[in-house]
């Protein structure tokens, strides 16, 4: 059944500071609302439980991409379109551009924000695997100040994260010059536009001249209750050579590490198989 529209409140604060004050005054009373591309879908189906929203879509401080010497800070309110168009992100963080291009289609990419993609806490979201593979930090802001967290610790359980009711996501921070030699992003879905992923793998690695894996980061979506950093598989691959035996063992490690389920988009068995195939494809690509 559709939502009863007059039940819902939305207020547009004048500034970031006013937003933080309102959130602090009665934590949990208000929730923030940015591009609306996730929330409006839930709203239309009549299942949007929370009723009071602060519209933060116009807040300029959240819409900026700052390129610094050592990092790139992407404001939480930046749209997928802004991410796709930024020359430094295109050059240095191509997996995030891939994720932005594969989220919805043009009209969604014009409105949907990276902060919203994280805050929605879906294990199937497209940008979290890339953020995990780039070992991003997340910056959380409240009236008391900000807090920096490694993004891999942010998601805790299904739709739960280390985000307090008085906080908003302010930005994500990507470290530049990490020395990666390879990156890999692949989303498997029903079609390339609009579809939500069945499995999504983002991976970065540094491979030495002697063909040894110096380090590897694996971010994987739709195979666990949260967007997952596959740390056990990463540890297994640390300092290993690029041999078929290593690849096989890595695949087994990954399949033991993920916990996919059957749902409307796919089933657990298929997801296991595809997750293994994506890992193998990535590892094979390290040889070149």
């Amino acid at each position, binding site marked *: 059944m559709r939502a009863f529209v007059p039940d819902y409140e939305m207020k547009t604060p004048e500034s970031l500071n006013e937003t933080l004050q309102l959130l602090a005054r009665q934590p949990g009373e208000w929730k923030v609302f940015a591009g*609306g591309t996730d929330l409006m*879908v839930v709203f239309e189906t009549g299942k949007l439980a929370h009723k009071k929203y602060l519209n933060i879509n116009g807040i300029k401080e959240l819409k900026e991409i700052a390129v610094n010497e050592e990092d790139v800070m992407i404001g939480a309110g930046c749209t997928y379109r802004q991410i796709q168009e930024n020359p430094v992100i295109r050059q240095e963080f191509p997996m995030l551009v891939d994720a932005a291009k594969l989220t919805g289609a043009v*009209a969604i990419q014009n409105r949907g924000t990276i902060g919203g993609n994280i805050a929605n806490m879906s294990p199937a979201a497209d940008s979290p695997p890339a953020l995990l593979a780039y070992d991003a930090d997340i910056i959380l802001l409240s009236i008391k100040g900000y807090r920096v967290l490694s993004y891999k610790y942010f998601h805790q359980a299904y739709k739960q994260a280390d985000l307090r009711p008085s906080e908003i996501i302010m930005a994500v921070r990507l470290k530049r010059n990490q020395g990666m030699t390879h990156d890999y992003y692949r989303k498997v879905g029903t079609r390339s536009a609009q579809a939500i992923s069945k499995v999504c793998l983002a991976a970065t690695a540094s491979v030495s001249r002697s063909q040894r894996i110096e380090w590897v980061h694996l971010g994987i979506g739709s195979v666990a209750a949260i967007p997952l950093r596959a740390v056990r598989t990463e540890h297994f691959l640390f300092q290993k050579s690029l041999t078929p035996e290593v690849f096989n063992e890595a695949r087994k490690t990954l399949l033991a590490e993920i916990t996919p389920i059957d749902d409307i988009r796919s089933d657990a068995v298929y997801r296991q198989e595809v997750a293994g195939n994506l890992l193998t494809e990535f590892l094979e690509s390290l040889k070149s």
Partner: protein
Amino acid sequence: MKVEFKLNGQDVSVEAPPMKRLLDVLREELSATGTKEGCGEGECGACSVMMDQVLVNSCLVPISQCSGVDILTVEGLGTTEDLHPIQQSFLECGGAQCGICTPGMLMASLELLNRNPNPNEAQIREGLAGNLCRCTGYMKIFDSVKKAAEVLK
């Protein structure tokens, strides 16, 4: 709440609950029924309009985010007597059949051609990937966009 914005170049003012969808405000309050509702969840593109010169799904925009914006719908694109070149191309190439997806297709084509006046086939498909059509099989729509690109050059 009272919300004022521009619709197809004219100032409008509506009284609506803040979460009312732009789509419903256009159709119910402003009698601008050119914009269609398909899926209501951002999947089909039938409700696409331009908001501050950027393509959006009007079913996913709450009216309280529309204060002061500039909305362009199919009614503002052209008139029956004076069609926009994109509309003329859809007419000539058979890009419209039942017509439900057409207003959204026109707006998505406008966004595409604004950004890239000379798109190749792959870019046309990408530009229209958020718009579903159950009649045409898409080929005539792609032809329409190619033709419009030539005319607009």
